[in-house]
C-alpha cells in the first residue's frame, strides 16, 4: 500500500514534468505558470502530503496554462526548538532570483508563517494560497495580507465523538493517539479544551508516551474503549514516524476500534465517520489557485472552511467491531464492504446451485425412474412366475392320468394288503410273519404315494420369489423321472437317461429346471404321437462342457422340426399342437436365460429333434 502510493506519486510527478516539457516544446508563446508548493513538515508528511497530492492532481487538471511546479519543504516545523532559517531563505532566493513565481501554496501554518516572515525578501508580490490548515490558525483571516487567501479546513473534534458514541454507545474510554511535535502539541491543547464538554468520557492522552509505549497501551485498553487517532508525527521520545506505517502498527496492536478525522487514513483500519475529505480540499485549493493564476486578486477570494464530509465507514471494521449498519447516520457511505461470498461469487454460486438443483432433480428423476422400473420388474417377475406356475399346472394337468394311475397303483396295493392282513388275522392261527411283511409293504406303498404327491406339490408350488440354490442337475433329472416315466409308459414311449457320472452343480431354482426338463420331455413325447410304437424314444442326456458349463440334451425319435418352424419354435404362443398353449418352450427359454444359460433346438442326423440347453457351472470343476 505504502510503496504503491509512493510509486504512484513519483509517477505523477514524473508525468507532470513530462507534460510540462511537452507543453513547453509545443507552446513557445505560452509562458508556464510557476507555482511553488511549500510544505511545513516535509513532502511526505501525512496528512499534508495527501492534501498536496490531491492539490497537484487537481491543479494540473484544472489549469488552462502549463504549470511549472516547484516543491520545497520547511522541515523545521517538525522540530520543537527554533531552527536557523537563514540558509533556507537564501536557497529559495537563489532558486527564484531569475524565475518569477506566480503562486505560492503553503501547506499548513508553519509554511504560511514562514512566507509571511520572508515575503519582502523573497516574493514581495507573489500571491499566496494557504491550505491544509485549520481555520482557527488564522481566525477571521487575521494575519493575512492582501496577497494571501486561505482554503482552510474545519476540524470539529467534538462532532467526531458524537460519531463514536453513536456507533459504540457503551464507550467509556477514549485513547487519543497523538505525538509530541509542536503541531501535535498545538492540537493536544486544542482538543483538551474542546473535550472538556464530554463529561461522561475518560480521555487517555498518549502524547507523552514513546511509540512502543503507545503500542503497548493500545493493546491493553479496558473494555468499551475507542482509539482516536488524529495524527502521530513525532513521539514523546522525539522519534519521527512515517504516518502510514505508524498507523498500521497501531492498528495491528489495538484492541479497540480506531477513529480518525481526515479521510487519508480511511481504509487503513479506521472505522470511519464524518471526515475531512483530502480530495475535496485539494479540489477547492486547485480551484482557487487557478483563479489566482488567472489574475484574480488573492484577497478577494473568500473560501469557506471545509468541514466534515459525508460519513464514510469501512465495512470490514464495522464487522470486526460488530457495529450494526443500522446505527450509522442516515446518508452514510459504507466502503470496503467485505463482499459476502454470495456477492463475490453470485453467478458462480447461482450456477453451482442451479447445477446442483439440476443434478438433484435428475437424481430424483432417476430414483423415481428406478423405483418405477424396479416395481415394473417386480411386477413382470411376478407375472413371469405366475405364467411359469400356470405352465407347470398345465403340465401337471397333462400328466394327471399318469399321476392318478401311479397313485391308484399304490392305493390298490395298500388296500389289497390291508384286506389280506385282515383275512390272515381272522384265521385261528394267524401267520404273523406274513402280516408283518404286509405291513412293511403297506408302508412302502404309502411312502411311494406320498412321494408322488410331494413331487406334484413341488411342481405346483406357487412362488413369489425365485429361490436359487446350488444342486446337482443330475438329481433334478432323476427327480423328474417318477413324473415322466408313467406318462411315457402311458404313451408307449421309451424314456432313457444318460447322465454324466460327475456331479453337475448349478445355481438355480430346482423347480424351474425340473419344469424345463418336463417341458422338453413332454414336447419330445408330443412330437412322436404319430410314430410307430417301436421307435418312440426320448433320451435325456447331461454332460459337462469344457469344465465351465453343463449341457442337457433332450432328444426324441420323431420326425424332426420343419425348417419354417425352427426359427419361431421358442416364441411365446407359437404352437403347432391342437392343444398346445405355445408356452412350454418359451418358458423353458425364459427359465434357462434367467439363470444365464442358452437353449436351442436342432434336428438329429439319425432323425428326430434334439433340444439342448446349457447352464453355467456353479463351482468350477477340476477336470
Amino acid at each position: 500500500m505504502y510503496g504503491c502510493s509512493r510509486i504512484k506519486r513519483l509517477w505523477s510527478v514524473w508525468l507532470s514534468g513530462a507534460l510540462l516539457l511537452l507543453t513547453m516544446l509545443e507552446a513557445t508563446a505560452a509562458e508556464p505558470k510557476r507555482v511553488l508548493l511549500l510544505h511545513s513538515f516535509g513532502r511526505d508528511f501525512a496528512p499534508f502530503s495527501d492534501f498536496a497530492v490531491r492539490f497537484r492532481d487537481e491543479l494540473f487538471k484544472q489549469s488552462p496554462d502549463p504549470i511549472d511546479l516547484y516543491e520545497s519543504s520547511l522541515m523545521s516545523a517538525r522540530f520543537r526548538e527554533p531552527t536557523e532559517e537563514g540558509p533556507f531563505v537564501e536557497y529559495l532566493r537563489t532558486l527564484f532570483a531569475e524565475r518569477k513565481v506566480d503562486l505560492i501554496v503553503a501547506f499548513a501554518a508553519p509554511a504560511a508563517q514562514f512566507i509571511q516572515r520572508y515575503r519582502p525578501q523573497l516574493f514581495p508580490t507573489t500571491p499566496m494560497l494557504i491550505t491544509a490548515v485549520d481555520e482557527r490558525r488564522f481566525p477571521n483571516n487575521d494575519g493575512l495580507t492582501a496577497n494571501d487567501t486561505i482554503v482552510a479546513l474545519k476540524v470539529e473534534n467534538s462532532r467526531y465523538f458524537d460519531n463514536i458514541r453513536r456507533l459504540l454507545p457503551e464507550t467509556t474510554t477514549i485513547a487519543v493517539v497523538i505525538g509530541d511535535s509542536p503541531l501535535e502539541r498545538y492540537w493536544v491543547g486544542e482538543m483538551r479544551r474542546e473535550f472538556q464538554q464530554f463529561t461522561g468520557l475518560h480521555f487517555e492522552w498518549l502524547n507523552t508516551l514513546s511509540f512502543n509505549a503507545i503500542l503497548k497501551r493500545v493493546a491493553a485498553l479496558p473494555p468499551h474503549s475507542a482509539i482516536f487517532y488524529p495524527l502521530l508525527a513525532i513521539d514523546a521520545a522525539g522519534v519521527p514516524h512515517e504516518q502510514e506505517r505508524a498507523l498500521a502498527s497501531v492498528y495491528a496492536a489495538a484492541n479497540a476500534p480506531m477513529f480518525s478525522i481526515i479521510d487519508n487514513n480511511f481504509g487503513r483500519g479506521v472505522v470511519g465517520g464524518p471526515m475531512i475529505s483530502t480530495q475535496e480540499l485539494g479540489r477547492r485549493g486547485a480551484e482557487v489557485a487557478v483563479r489566482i493564476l488567472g489574475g484574480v486578486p488573492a484577497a478577494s477570494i473568500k473560501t469557506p472552511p471545509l468541514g466534515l464530509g459525508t460519513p464514510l465507514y469501512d465495512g470490514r471494521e464495522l464487522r470486526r467491531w460488530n457495529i450494526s449498519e443500522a446505527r450509522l447516520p442516515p446518508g452514510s457511505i459504507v466502503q470496503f464492504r467485505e463482499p459476502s461470498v454470495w456477492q463475490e461469487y453470485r453467478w458462480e454460486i447461482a450456477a453451482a446451485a442451479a447445477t446442483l438443483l439440476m443434478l438433484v432433480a435428475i437424481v430424483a428423476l432417476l430414483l423415481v425412474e428406478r423405483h418405477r422400473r424396479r416395481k415394473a420388474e417386480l411386477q413382470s417377475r411376478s407375472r413371469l412366475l405366475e405364467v411359469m406356475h400356470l405352465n407347470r399346472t398345465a403340465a401337471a394337468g397333462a400328466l394327471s392320468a399318469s399321476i392318478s394311475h401311479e397313485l391308484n397303483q399304490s392305493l390298490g396295493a395298500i388296500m389289497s394288503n390291508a384286506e389280506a392282513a385282515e383275512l390272515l388275522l381272522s384265521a385261528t392261527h394267524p401267520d404273523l410273519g406274513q402280516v408283518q411283511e404286509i405291513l412293511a409293504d403297506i408302508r412302502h406303498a404309502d411312502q411311494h404315494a406320498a412321494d408322488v404327491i410331494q413331487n406334484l406339490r413341488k411342481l405346483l408350488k406357487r412362488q413369489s420369489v425365485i429361490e436359487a440354490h446350488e444342486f446337482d442337475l443330475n438329481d433334478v433329472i432323476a427327480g423328474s423321472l417318477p413324473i415322466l416315466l408313467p406318462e411315457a409308459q402311458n404313451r408307449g414311449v421309451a424314456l432313457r437317461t444318460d447322465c454324466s457320472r460327475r456331479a453337475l452343480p448349478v445355481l438355480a431354482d430346482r423347480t424351474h429346471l425340473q419344469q424345463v426338463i418336463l417341458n422338453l420331455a413332454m414336447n419330445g413325447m408330443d412330437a412322436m404321437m404319430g410314430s410307430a410304437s417301436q421307435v418312440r424314444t426320448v433320451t435325456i442326456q447331461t454332460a459337462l462342457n469344457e469344465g465351465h458349463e453343463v449341457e442337457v440334451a433332450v432328444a426324441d425319435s420323431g420326425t424332426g422340426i420343419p425348417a419354417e418352424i425352427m426359427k419361431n419354435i421358442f416364441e411365446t404362443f407359437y404352437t403347432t399342437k391342437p392343444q398346445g398353449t405355445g408356452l412350454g418352450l418359451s418358458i423353458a427359454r425364459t427359465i434357462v436365460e434367467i439363470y444365464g444359460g442358452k437353449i436351442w433346438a436342432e434336428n438329429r442326423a439319425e432323425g428326430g429333434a434334439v433340444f439342448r440347453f446349457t447352464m453355467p457351472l456353479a463351482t468350477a470343476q477340476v477336470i
Partner: protein
Amino acid sequence: MTAAPLIHVVDDDASFRTAIARLLRAAGYQVVLYESGDAFLSQPVSAEDGCILLDVRMPGFTGLDLQNHLNDLDCILPVVFLTGHGDIPTNVRAVKAGAEDFLSKPVAKEKLLEAVERALARCIERREERDQINRLRDLVSKLTPREHEVFSLVVRGKLNKQIAAELGTSERTVKAHRRAVMDKLEVDSLAESVSIAERLGMLSNSAEKN
C-alpha cells in the same frame, strides 16, 4: 372239491402284484403272478379252471393287446381288468372284447372277490360247454365220411329222397346211414341231431360252403 381255482395276475407293478396275490391266497385261491403280458404268454395256457386279473396299462404288451391275443387263442379263461386310471373308451373296448369285469384300483375285497367268483363261474360254464362240444365232436368224428355227408344233409332238413339224389344212391341206403348216424350220435330224434350240428357250428359252415 378238487384243487382251488387258479388266478392269473398280470401286472407290472410288483407291490400291487404281491398285495393282490396275498389277498387272493388268503381268500383261498391259487395265484400265479406275471409281470407282463409276454411273461403270461410264454407259459402254456393253463388247463385248470381260473381267471386272469389283468392290468390295463403295462409297458410293451398292454392289457387290451393281451386280451385280444387270448381271444385269438380261444382261451376260456375270463379276463377281469384292473386299472389305475380307467377312462371310458378303454373300458368300452375291454368289455366289447369280452372282458368279464372292469375294476378300478384300489378295489375293495368284496368287489374283487365277487368279480373273481363271477369269472370263475363263467370259466366253469365255458369249460363245461367246451367239454360238451368236445364230446359231441368226438361222436361226430366217429361217423364214416358217408355217414357224415348224410348227417350234414339231414340236419339241413333234406328228405331221404333228396339226399339219395344228391349223393347218387338209393333212398334205402340213405335210411340205413341215418340210423347209423343216430346210433353213433346217441340221439333219438332229428331235432337232437340238428341241435348237435348247430352247437358244433356245422350249420353255418355248411351254409358258407353252399
